[in-house]
C-alpha cells in the first residue's frame, strides 16, 4: 500500500499519458478509418482495392508487429518523431482498419431504399453518403465503435514496450522495484483501467438512451 501512496502522483501522470495517447489516436484513426470506409464503397476501383487491401493486411497483423514497423520503419523513411508520436501513428494505423469495417457494416444496415430515394432525388455519390447514409450509419455504429475505442484504449498498453511512459509501463517499473507489493499495485492499475473503460461505455450508453428518448 505504501508504494501506491508514495507514487500516486506519478501513477496519475502515467494514466494521463495513457488517456492522451488513446485520445489522439482515436481522433486520427476515426478520420483515417472514415476515409478508408468511403474508399471501400466508392465507384473508383483502385480506391476500393486499396481500402480492402489495407483492411485485410492490417487486421491480420499483430499490433506489436505494427509497432515494430512504425517505430523502426518510419525513421528509415526519413520521418522523425518522438516515441509518443510514433506510438500514436502505430495505434491509428492499426485501429483505422477496425473503424473502417465498423463504418462499412453500419452502412450496410441502412435499408437500400434510403440510398435509392436519395438517388431518385438526384443526389450524387458524395451527397448521398454525406447527407443520407452517414448520419444514419453513425447512429447504428455507435455501440460497435465504442468497443473499438475501448480496444484502442487497452491497446495503448503495448506502447509500454516502445518507449512511452504510460500506465502499464509504470506498473512494470513499480513491480520491478517493489516485488513484494505486486498484488496491491496490480489491483490499483486494473482499477484505473476499469474506471476509464467502464466509464466510457457508461457515457455512451447514457448518450444512446438520451438520443433514443428525444
Amino acid at each position, binding site marked *: 500500500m505504501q508504494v501506491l501512496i508514495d507514487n500516486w502522483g506519478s501513477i496519475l501522470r502515467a494514466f494521463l499519458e495513457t488517456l492522451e495517447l488513446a485520445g489522439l489516436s482515436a481522433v486520427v484513426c476515426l478520420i483515417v478509418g472514415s476515409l478508408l470506409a468511403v474508399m471501400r464503397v466508392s465507384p473508383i476501383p483502385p480506391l476500393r482495392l486499396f481500402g480492402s487491401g489495407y483492411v485485410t493486411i492490417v487486421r491480420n497483423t499483430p499490433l506489436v508487429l505494427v509497432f515494430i514497423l512504425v517505430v523502426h*520503419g518510419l525513421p528509415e523513411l526519413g520521418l522523425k518523431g518522438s516515441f509518443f508520436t510514433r506510438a500514436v501513428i502505430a495505434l491509428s494505423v492499426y485501429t483505422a482498419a477496425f473503424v473502417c469495417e465498423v463504418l462499412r457494416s453500419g452502412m450496410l444496415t441502412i435499408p437500400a431504399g434510403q440510398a435509392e430515394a436519395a438517388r431518385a432525388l438526384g443526389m450524387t455519390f458524395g451527397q448521398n453518403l454525406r447527407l443520407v447514409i452517414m448520419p444514419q450509419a453513425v447512429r447504428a455504429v455507435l455501440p460497435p465503435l465504442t468497443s473499438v475505442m475501448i480496444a484502442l484504449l487497452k491497446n495503448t498498453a503495448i506502447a509500454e514496450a516502445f518507449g512511452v511512459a504510460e500506465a502499464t509501463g509504470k506498473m512494470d517499473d513499480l513491480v520491478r522495484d517493489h516485488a513484494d507489493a505486486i498484488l496491491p499495485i*496490480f489491483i490499483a492499475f486494473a482499477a484505473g483501467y476499469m474506471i476509464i473503460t467502464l466509464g466510457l461505455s457508461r457515457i455512451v450508453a447514457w448518450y444512446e438512451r438520451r438520443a433514443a428518448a428525444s
Partner: protein
Amino acid sequence: MTSVLYDPPGPRGRRRILLGTVLASLVLLAGAGWVVKRLADQGQFEPVLWEPFKDPDIQHTIALGAVGTLKAAGLAIVCSMVVGAVLAVGRLSAHRPVRLVCTVVVEVSRSIPLLLLMLALFLAYPQQLGSFGALVLGLTIYNGSVLAEVFRAGIQALPKGQSEAAFALGLRKNQVMRLILLPQAIRSMLPALISQCVVTLKDTALGYVILYPELLSKGKSIYITYFNIIPTAIVIGAIYITTNILISKLAEYLQRRSEHRQKNQLGKPTLMPLDPLASVEAAASGTVT
C-alpha cells in the same frame, strides 16, 4: 451495396470514373513509389539484408518461432473454450453468488489490457509460470471471458421452446444446459469462435514483450544480428497474415455451410436458431482485439 449508392454510370459518368481511376492509380502508385524509393535509398533492398532468409539455420529459427506461436495459441484456445463455457454457464446460473463471481471475472478481465494481466502474472510468478505459462494463462483468462459472452449470447438467442421442451421431458437444470443448450449455442457460434482464434493468434505476439520465444521474438533475434529489421518484419508479417486469412476463410466456409443447412431445413423442425445474422454480428464484434 456499392451499386445502391450511385446510378449505373452513363457515358459522362463513365468518363469521370475513368478519370478518377487514372488519378487515384497515379496517386497510389506515386505514394508506393516514394516509399519504395526511400527504402531503397536507405539500402533496405540490398541483397545482404534479404539473403539471411535463404539460410537454413535462419529458416529453422523462424520455424521454431512459428511452432512457439502455434503452441501458445493452440493451448490458449482450447483452455479458453473450456473457461468460456464454464463462465457462460456460471453467468446464467440460478445461484446468485455463482452468477456474481462469474460476472466480476468476465467484466474485469475484459476491461483491462491483456498485456497488464500478462505482465502481472509473469512478474508475480516468474519461476512457476515462466513466460509461456504467463502468456497462455493471460490469453486463457482474457479470451475465456470474451468467449463466455459469445456463448451466453448464443444460449440466449436459442428459442425458449428448447429449454421448455427439455424441462418438460424431465431433464435436470444441468442436463438441459449440458445436453440441449450448450451444444446448440456452440454450433451456432462457431464462426465467432473461429474469428476469436485469429484474435488469439495475433495476441500471442504479446509474448514478444515478456520474452517468450514466439514468431516475433525469433524475428527480433534475427534482426539484431543482421540489422535487417524491415525485411524481417515483412517476412514475419507475411506469415501471420497468411495464417490468419486461412483461418478466416475456414470461418466463412463454416458460416456458409451452416446457412446452407438451415435453408435445407426450412419447414422442418430445426435444431438451430434461424437467425444467421446473430452469429454474423457476434463475429463482427468478436474480431476487435
